[in-house]
């Protein structure tokens, strides 16, 4: 079994910041907007190097989304930055009408997604954003797994013409994807080969899926782990190819079970190859205050839960 190790942990939001900095140097049309969270979004270096291409909007996210839509008229490629909660739920109608329906080339970059925002609690821990965004026609939804992949995704979406939701987070997580790996929107990455169960994970849960696969391997269970960084458009073929070998699947995400990656996978399977599936996700609940690690354990978003679900789903074959 292919195994993954890491030598360094970093937050995915810093991957976004690094990607944005690189875009600032290479693409003169890239502009950035922020709603009073420059430090949290790691946008400082882009701003230092390109002050004329940065727009501090203040605590006014609805206005930020509208301004971003307007900036595209005239050829700019706006990247908006704020927390995931304020990037989606707070401004849903602005995104819906002025960006998605209008087909504007805006990149909605959302940090502090999910439970791992931590101590600030449920007001800030959105677990519904993937669902909100994937329901919008034409919206691409990306949730990369580590620093390198977030940086690569940030750079890649500038070359894609259309609205994108890029979701990343606050905690330091292992860096295990290659720094030079090209990011292809909508192209799943198979991390391990396996024959007994498919584990499809996105974002912070990808590393947990790899950890789970090690434990499963020790138990004699061969798990195929797939990194689904792009939830929409979903790489349906990669999933179908894998379950045709394994015959069952576990999906894992830092999101509500309603509306997330798991439901997109379930729909794909229902239409093409009905397959037993178990879900690792929050179960229609809000989060709460706590450390990221405590929260992920309490809500079962970890390797141990993936192992349990994998064992359960294998029995349903």
């Amino acid at each position, binding site marked *: 079994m292919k195994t993954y190790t890491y030598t360094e942990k970093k937050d995915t939001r810093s991957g976004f910041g690094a990607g944005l900095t690189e875009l600032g140097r290479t693409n003169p049309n890239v502009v950035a907007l922020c709603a009073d969270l420059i430090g949290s979004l790691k946008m400082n270096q882009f701003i230092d190097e390109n002050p004329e291409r940065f727009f501090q*909007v203040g605590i006014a996210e*609805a*206005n930020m989304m509208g*301004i971003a839509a*307007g900036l*595209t*008229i005239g*050829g700019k490629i706006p990247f908006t930055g704020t927390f995931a909660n304020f990037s989606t739920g707070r401004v849903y109608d602005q995104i819906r*009408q*002025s960006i998605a329906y209008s087909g504007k080339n805006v990149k909605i970059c959302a940090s502090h997604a999910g439970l791992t925002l931590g101590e600030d609690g449920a007001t800030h821990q959105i677990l519904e954003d993937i669902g909100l965004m994937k329901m919008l026609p034409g919206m691409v939804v990306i949730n990369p797994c580590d620093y390198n992949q977030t940086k690569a995704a940030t750079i890649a979406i500038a070359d894609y013409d259309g609205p994108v939701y890029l979701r990343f987070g606050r905690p330091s997580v292992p860096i295990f994807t290659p720094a030079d790996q090209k990011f292809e929107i909508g192209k799943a990455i198979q991390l391990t080969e396996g024959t007994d169960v498919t584990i499809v994970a996105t974002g912070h849960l990808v590393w947990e899926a790899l950890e789970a696969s090690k434990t499963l391997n020790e138990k004699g269970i061969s798990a195929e782990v797939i990194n689904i960084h792009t939830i929409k458009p979903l790489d349906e073929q990669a999933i179908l190819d894998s379950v045709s070998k394994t015959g069952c699947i576990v999906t894992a995400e830092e999101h509500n079970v309603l509306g997330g990656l798991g439901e997109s996978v379930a729909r794909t399977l229902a239409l093409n190859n009905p397959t037993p599936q178990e879900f690792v996700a929050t179960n229609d609940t809000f989060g709460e205050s706590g450390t990221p690690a405590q929260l992920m354990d309490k809500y079962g978003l970890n390797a141990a839960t993936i192992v349990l679900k994998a064992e359960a789903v294998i029995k349903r074959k």
Partner: protein
Amino acid sequence: MLNTKHLEDLTTQVRRDILRMVHKVNSGHPGGSLGCAEFFVSLYSEIMDRKKDFNMDGIEEDLFFLSNGHISPVFYSVLARSGYFPVDELNTFRLIDSRLQGHPTTHEGLPGVRIASGSLGQGMSVAIGAAQAKKLNGDKHLVYSLHGDGELQEGQNWEAIMYASAKKVDNLISTIDLNGQQIDGSTDDVLPMGSIKGKFEAFGWTVLEIEEGNNINAILKGMAEAKSKTGQGKPICVLLKTVMGNGVDFMMHTHAWHGKAPNDEQLAIGLEQNAETLGDY
């Protein structure tokens, strides 16, 4: 006084277009559309510096954003009669498979429309973004926007109004259609907004008033003055005092025709009051 006969004729024809469009599908918003006919005709015929080839890249020409998208009939009529798409296409307003959706959208590729609007309160932010893109591009052209007065009840406007002055977006002229009416009644009855002029001024805008917002000469004069005040560090607000339903006597001065189409008999009266000038579509 300018000789504005051709603009008056065009306005009359636009009124006919509006009435016939909403009558045909028994839906749409004639009241606000009629109230802004002179403004749209003046804007597209005289005020804006527009590209002759109707290229929609938004560069090196003045831009217009309609925030109160429900007055799409006047927008569509004036766009068509300005050459953005065939006048005959007005026949398809609100019909299935049409580019002329109930509220304007870029989604069906209708030339002249740069943003979807309809859900209120979003247009000023978009106009600000377009104006800031012009500044980045070194494009000296202006951005115009139109908003309903009732629409100012949406909070996003005030985020945008605060931002535009703070960031010195002085290549933006936002016009407020001050007709004093909204769906449920007069704006004073539904939610009194106090002094809109005072509010914009307090937020750091230059405010101009056009008292006769259905008088083409007054509009041309007022908008010329607005243009002359651009580039001075402040965004410009024009308070355009209009009469809802203007030009059709039984539709005037009331919110009753905000979103209601005339029946056959009412259409006939409205058309009689606005004799054909440039030819019906």
